[in-house]
């Protein structure tokens, strides 16, 4: 009975954690998976989103509503950032190189230092009525502070998937990942499409930031803990697959949760990479890479 209790709770916890991981990785699935931009600053951008949401929450705004509202200015920031990146690197033929990796590493540091200067290094939390309460169904007890942000992930991923597959702009974003010149022949501006896609990725960072700060307190350096895992999720899913991101993240979340429950919590961080290596050995394009 005890094993069943622990096992069921581990499974549900894993699914919930995986959904949150998916939300955090979603922006990177666009920038890295579709645009092939090694945006190592994405987790720092997510933490930037968390701080923005925490500020709104200090005025009484619900964190998820704040996340949705902050997605708009974050979109604009993403457009500006891509424009800078495009002019500095891509237009000079230096995009997607070690130099662009260095650029985004630098942006990550700037965001962290900016947050330290503006808010200090104290942990920052939010308040919401559901934090501190749980949903109990039989054996399963799940805190709302994980459940609610986890529920946001499938909704956002479904909407993004609809946008990518049912709208011309969405199709253009997917097309730009394959062949920019074909897009130009069709009369579209690849740079404008990429700018828009980067803006969406930044908007996703604001939503992910809201989800993350609901689960627990953050500090300016909290993004560093997620860098490895989000890249693992994107690569495991297969570059550029939006629904695949959710599946890969849940797979990692469930594996981590079982390892934490039945083996040792210390081993959990290695699980994502163990699964990644094992999967890439069998399927070099990731779980869903061939389905694009």
């Amino acid at each position: 009975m005890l094993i069943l209790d622990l096992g069921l709770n581990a499974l549900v916890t894993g699914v919930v954690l995986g959904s949150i991981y998916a939300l955090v990785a979603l922006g990177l699935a666009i920038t890295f998976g579709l645009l092939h931009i090694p945006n190592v600053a994405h987790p720092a951008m997510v933490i930037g989103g968390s701080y923005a949401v925490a500020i709104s929450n200090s005025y009484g705004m619900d964190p998820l509503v704040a996340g949705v509202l902050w997605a708009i200015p974050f979109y604009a920031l993403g457009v500006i950032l891509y424009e800078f990146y495009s002019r500095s690197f891509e237009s000079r033929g230096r995009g997607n190189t070690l130099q662009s990796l260095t650029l985004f590493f630098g942006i990550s540091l700037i965001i962290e230092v900016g947050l330290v200067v503006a808010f200090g290094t104290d942990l920052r939390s939010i308040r919401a009525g559901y934090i501190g309460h749980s949903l109990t169904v039989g054996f399963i007890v799940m805190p709302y502070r994980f459940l609610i942000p986890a529920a946001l992930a499938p909704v956002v991923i479904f909407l993004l998937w609809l946008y990518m597959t049912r709208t011309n702009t969405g199709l253009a974003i997917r097309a730009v990942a394959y062949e920019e010149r074909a897009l130009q022949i069709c009369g579209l501006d690849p740079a404008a499409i990429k700018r828009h896609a980067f803006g969406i990725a930044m908007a996703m960072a604001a939503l992910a930031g809201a989800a993350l700060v609901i689960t627990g307190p953050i500090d300016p350096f909290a993004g560093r803990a997620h860098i490895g895992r989000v890249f693992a999720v994107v690569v495991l899913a297969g570059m550029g697959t939006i629904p695949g991101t959710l599946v890969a993240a849940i797979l990692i979340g469930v594996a981590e949760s079982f390892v934490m429950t039945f083996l040792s919590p210390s081993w959990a961080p290695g699980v994502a990479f163990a699964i990644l290596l094992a999967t890439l050995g069998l399927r070099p394009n990731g779980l869903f890479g061939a389905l694009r």
Partner: protein
Amino acid sequence: MKITRRNFTQIGLGTMAGIAAPAVWSGAHAQSQPIRIGASASLTGPLSGTKNLVIGYELWRDDINAAGGLLGRKVELVIYDDQSVPANIPGIYSKLVDVDKVDFLFSPYGANLTAPVMPFAKSRDRFIIGILTLAANDTIKHDKFFQAAPWGPNGAENWARGFFDLANGNGIKKMAILAADTEFSKTAAAGGRRVSEQFGMQVVDYQIYPPTNRDFSAILRNVRASAAEAVFVCSYPADSTGIVRGIQEIGIGDQVRLFGGGMVGTQYASLLENLGPALNGITSFHLYVPEPTLKFTGIDDFLSRYAPIAKQRQVDPLGFYIPPFTYAAGQLISTAVKATGTIDQAKVSQWLHANAVETIVGKMSFNELGDWTQRRVLMCQFRNIQGNDIDQFRQAGKQVIVDPPAYKSGDLMSLAQSRKA
């Protein structure tokens, strides 16, 4: 030219006066120079949450100067930002000693940042006061090192021993240990396991978790399944928050009577404000709380002067954890210098080894390693926390001291009992 005996004497005296003049002048000049105290502080970087320690130094300097200075000389602080980076420390302290010519040193905050300066202090034979540095002098054995915080002898292993004394005193037989996967936490956890076994307790669960972990539901379920009666936790602020929330949301079972011990973060206002009533029943370490058993001379005045400065600088509004101890570090220097009538480092050190000093955090006396002769790490149980108002923590009865017995302000209540209360 013929030199007479009188001329020779005059020339000789003139030459000697010329040679002696700079020394006489600089000696007199030095007497009018301020006494300089050097330190580094983490004003930026990951440890910048500790920068409120500077307020303690500044208030001490202001008090000394307002009272006429030390040996008639003003006291001056020379503080550099170490950016929370250990690699910056040797350069900063070399500059303090060789360029700024400071007379005394305060260490950086904590063990990690202090470790690089200890060999330097020993090789240059400099007087230095450790600022909450755990076991900084255990291997170096520098005779001019003194510890401001009450970790006591063999602090690395024993700083949280009060938790196990409590468990033993309350008849607890089954202990669980949770620790973050860091050097500090694991050392404390290993020490906790040894002490538990010495007391005849069974360690029924021993979990080391990654420091980036935020979901503790699986860990807490395992603790509940182990039927532990006490849980010793060595955590950092973010995980402390996750663990306290986890207890609130998932529960840990009524059999757990004692929970906490080494939870870093429960000393800081930001975490107290965030967690509020979820803290009730948790027992964690502290160095000072406003309980009636810790009414030392000057502490209330210090805290009342600290509060407006902290508000203006947007640092920890309570300031219980570090600033009183940096003020007390200053008091160690001023008391010893006044008593010896000199700033000679050897004499000041000898005096501190031989005499106790009354400070705003109590009487300090030091062993041969410069640690407090007796551990006075407090184990405090959160009680009657209502809402998230930070000012309630300034009142007595919110963080009840349950160990050590000499400073006890209440008896331990079981976790479940105090949460219901």
